């Protein structure tokens, strides 16, 4: 209809520029229109018309006059169009495995091999491509879509590159948009825009999954200590099963580590479930996270994912400095000793001039008390500062403590006490900056009065405070804990800090008790009491609340601390042919980013795969070294980086990753229309449903790419103009008749 009324499709109007074929200027037209309006007004006033009548009749008559004047100027559209037979149209068909769902591929083939492309071929040479693992030009489409990956970006980049030598006028992309190649970024879009190639996307597949449960993501820490609790966060999506329950399970080989009944929620929207897992013994583990498939589920291959966790057998060292003998120290030491995976060294000031050291590795270690050098302090992964005044530490030591968190990435825990926090002048020290709370400017904040400890909402989710596995039982367990021997008032938590536990000394009184935050590369926690020892002494000897809490807090503090060399990959799993992005963060002896290190990585993989590569310094980040590498076959890979400065080894680190071919094809299988629309809009193309693709051939010629010609297409003779003219006169006649003024 639009084309009938206005001579051309809407796309011509969108892309064209309005011009006047008469050659007379638009300014003259405007002047004439104004003069006509003034003349009409004068004439109508002479006829003694006023008010509504003057306005209505004036508008009708001026409308007719104006339309006639515009037509007299001969309006036309100036558009750039492809020269027939001189431009190539690239038709790209997604032949990845996800296109096998819902007959998507068959539909695409029908279009590519049917009337739509046949129409195109009448006007343009058509080149056929398939997008899959690697893009390829084909004469005939494959029978079935079997590619293990959808790399639309690579196909579009190839076409953009070919346009340098070939007049590519447009791209027709037939896909479900489930791109997992990672190459459809701004660079690819920019290369298409530079070549002015419009991408017309034809989207296949339903835009919302029917009756499906999917594990959209699973997040686990990459490295943990043996015997640690790990928090697994699973992101789930479902359609069509709202309100039903499903069983979520985590397996290490045949053994089930955890399972949970989950209620399916959020129709089409992702939601998260958390499970706490026991890391178990040391070793690299591949955990399978799955939802038991439900009846009538169309796609069951997106119900499970695998994640790798490196359970590293190492003992982080923790330094505990205590300003005076306290029961808290005894029981913290005991909890750490029972852990077996924590190495706690402690110094306590027994008298004004004497220290008592425990857990030291040599008679000389910590001989002079609290460390005063990087070498001595940075040998530890975490630091506990007990009941001691800020002024006890020299300015250099205070700076060292801050750098310990910020630069070294260590964990620092501040405890409450009569000489700690604001009672110890910490609020006036430079270290106030790293505390997760603002401290009040007053003495007497420490009180040897009973207070109960209550979990906050964040605390109920935290692994530090997870004494019982079941969240409800855990909450009940915390409520049943004996009161603390003392507590210390603190100020409000800082932005970014998380309050996990509150001290409740009385009705309507609450103070942050356990607060955590990240600081620089490290972590800082505050436990505003020295009285958790009552959880041990006032409960049955078999009760493990105190030990579990402290072990988890100390593991949180020390277990994730990075050393001088940290090796990372951008993801844990890669598809075949995909580049594995390897990144090493290297620090020198003072834990400053190293710019002079030489970093080599040795990769071992399945079937005797062994490769060595040198990482190149990043151009944008100091101390970062990067490389890309392609895994030659599916399976698990282990990479070990060694960083050296001259002949000296700075450190080494390992990381594990997997190549899994085709797994991604069965996740997020619904049509990604948003991506396709964005791609079309950013390149000047259009998005089509398969049913609307018939208009492709007409619209595709409107392109600025390839070999083009400028055409002027008259619109003054469009039927719509004459209909409007007749409509205006008829409306005027009706109005005049009604008012008796014919």
């Amino acid at each position: 209809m639009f084309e009938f009324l206005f001579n051309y499709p809407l796309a011509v109007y969108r892309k064209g520029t309005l011009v006047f074929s008469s050659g007379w200027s638009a300014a003259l037209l405007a002047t004439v229109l104004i003069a006509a309006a003034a003349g009409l007004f004068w004439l109508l006033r002479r006829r003694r018309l006023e008010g509504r009548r003057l306005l209505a009749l004036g508008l009708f008559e001026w409308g007719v006059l104006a339309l006639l004047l515009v037509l007299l100027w001969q309006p036309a559209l100036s558009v750039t169009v492809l020269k027939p037979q001189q431009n190539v149209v690239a038709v790209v068909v997604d032949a990845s495995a996800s296109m096998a769902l819902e007959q998507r591929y068959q539909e695409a083939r029908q279009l590519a091999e049917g009337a739509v492309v046949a129409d195109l071929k009448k006007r343009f040479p058509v080149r056929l491509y398939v997008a899959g693992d690697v893009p390829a030009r084909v004469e005939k489409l494959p029978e079935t879509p079997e590619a293990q990956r959808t790399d639309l970006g690579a196909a579009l980049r190839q076409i953009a590159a070919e346009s340098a030598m070939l007049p590519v006028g447009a791209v027709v992309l037939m896909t479900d948009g489930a791109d997992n190649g990672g190459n459809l970024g701004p660079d690819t879009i920019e290369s298409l825009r530079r070549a002015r190639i419009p991408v017309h996307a034809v989207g296949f597949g339903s835009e919302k999954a029917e009756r499906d449960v999917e594990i959209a993501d699973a997040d686990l820490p990459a490295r943990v200590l043996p015997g640690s609790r790990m928090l697994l966060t699973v992101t789930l999506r479902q359609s069509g099963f709202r309100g039903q329950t499903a069983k979520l399970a985590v397996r290490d080989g045949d053994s089930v580590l955890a399972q949970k009944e989950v209620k399916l929620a959020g129709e089409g929207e992702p939601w998260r479930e958390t499970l706490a897992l026991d890391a178990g013994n040391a070793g690299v583990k591949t955990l399978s996270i799955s939802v038991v498939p439900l009846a009538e589920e169309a796609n069951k291959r997106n119900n499970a994912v695998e994640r790798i966790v490196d359970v590293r057998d190492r003992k982080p060292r923790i330094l505990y400095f205590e300003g005076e003998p306290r029961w808290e120290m005894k029981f913290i030491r005991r909890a750490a000793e029972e852990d077996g995976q924590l190495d706690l060294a402690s110094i306590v000031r027994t008298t004004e001039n004497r220290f008592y050291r425990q857990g030291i590795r040599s008679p000389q270690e910590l001989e002079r008390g609290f460390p005063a050098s990087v070498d001595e302090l940075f040998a530890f992964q975490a630091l506990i500062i007990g009941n001691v005044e800020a002024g006890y530490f020299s300015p250099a030591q205070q700076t060292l403590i801050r750098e310990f968190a910020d630069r070294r990435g260590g964990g620092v825990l501040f405890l409450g006490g009569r000489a700690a926090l604001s009672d110890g002048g910490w609020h006036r020290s430079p270290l106030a900056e790293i505390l997760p709370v603002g401290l009040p400017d007053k003495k007497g904040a420490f009180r040897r009065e009973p207070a109960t400890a209550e979990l906050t909402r964040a605390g109920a989710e935290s692994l530090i405070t997870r004494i019982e596995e079941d969240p409800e039982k855990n909450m009940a367990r915390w409520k049943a804990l004996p009161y603390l021997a003392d507590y210390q008032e603190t100020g409000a938590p800082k932005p970014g800090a998380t309050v996990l536990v509150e001290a409740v000394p009385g009705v309507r009184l609450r103070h942050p008790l356990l607060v955590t935050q990240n600081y620089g590369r490290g972590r800082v926690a505050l436990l505003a009491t020295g009285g958790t020892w009552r959880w041990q002494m006032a409960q049955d000897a078999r009760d493990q609340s105190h030990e579990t809490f402290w072990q988890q807090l100390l593991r949180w503090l020390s277990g994730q601390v990075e050393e001088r060399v940290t090796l990372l990959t951008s993801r844990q799993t890669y598809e075949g042919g995909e580049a594995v992005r390897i990144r090493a963060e290297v620090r020198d002896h003072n834990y400053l980013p190293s710019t002079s290190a030489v970093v080599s990585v040795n990769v071992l993989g399945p079937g005797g795969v062994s490769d060595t590569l040198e990482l190149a310094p990043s151009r944008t980040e100091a101390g970062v070294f990067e490389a890309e590498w392609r895994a030659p076959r599916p399976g698990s890979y282990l990479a070990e980086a060694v960083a050296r400065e001259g002949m000296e080894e700075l450190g080494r680190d390992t990381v594990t990753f997997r190549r899994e071919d085709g797994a991604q094809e069965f996740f997020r299988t619904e049509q990604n229309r948003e991506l396709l629309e964005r791609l079309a809009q950013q390149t000047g193309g259009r998005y089509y449903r398969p049913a609307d693709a018939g208009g492709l051939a007409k619209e595709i010629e409107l392109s600025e790419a390839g070999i083009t010609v400028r055409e002027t297409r008259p619109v003054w003779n469009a039927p719509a103009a004459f209909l409007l003219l007749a409509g205006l006169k008829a409306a005027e006649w009706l109005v005049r008749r009604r008012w008796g003024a014919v």
Partner: protein
Amino acid sequence: MDMRRQLALVLAGLMLAATLYAFQRGYGNIRRLFPETDADFPPPGAEQKTEFYFARLRYPNVRASGIWAMRGSWTVDYPKADRQFVQGLIRLTRIHANPMERVVDLTSDEIFNYPFVYVVEPGHWDLPEAQARKLREFIDRGGFLMTDDFHGTFEWELFTASLNKAFADRPIVDVEDSDPIFHVLYDLDDRVQVPGIVNYPFQKTYEYDGIEPKWRAWRDARGRIAIAICFNMDQGDAWEWADNPHYPEKYASQAYRTAINYILYAMTH
């Protein structure tokens, strides 16, 4: 009764009277030199809340007769020894200690608020099963017990008879000189027997057949000393009479140092 026999009886009676007189006179002399006082006023600062309290165990006595009935009670040296020792503890260390002792027993749960407990004359305690089990629970939770002032074979057997009701699973052992408990603060390699005032003028430092002082211990599953046993010595008297010129300074000094080490050990292990 013939004359000879009557004479023998009279002589025996005179000898007994003379012995008792001599004993009384000697004891009276000791009491004159080391006068007990019943004054019991809370020391200044007793009301403040502190980290450490010197807790003394109140226990049921063994029902003995004869000379053994004269000895043994949880109150021996109480409260002067405790208060005088704590003054030294406060002065010599950074422990935030209360100047007044607390008395605890094994019939309530109050003991669990005091992880360090001192018991005097346990050679005369008679712990019922339930109290022995509670003492074990106290130790298993992390409590520390220091025993003092019992001597000789007879009192050792009474001590272990009660203790073994709940602690028989591990042996009592001698503590080696190298053990941290003798080095936490003071190095106590050269220890001597600390006598009670009953030994005045201290030519002899032992009581009964407890000739050799023994520093023994009951260790927990991880080898930490949980019950520190000062056997054949009397630290309590040394604390109590440390201010008395008739009590030798070297014994008082060692008694203070030993207990300070024990408390620091209890607070760090």
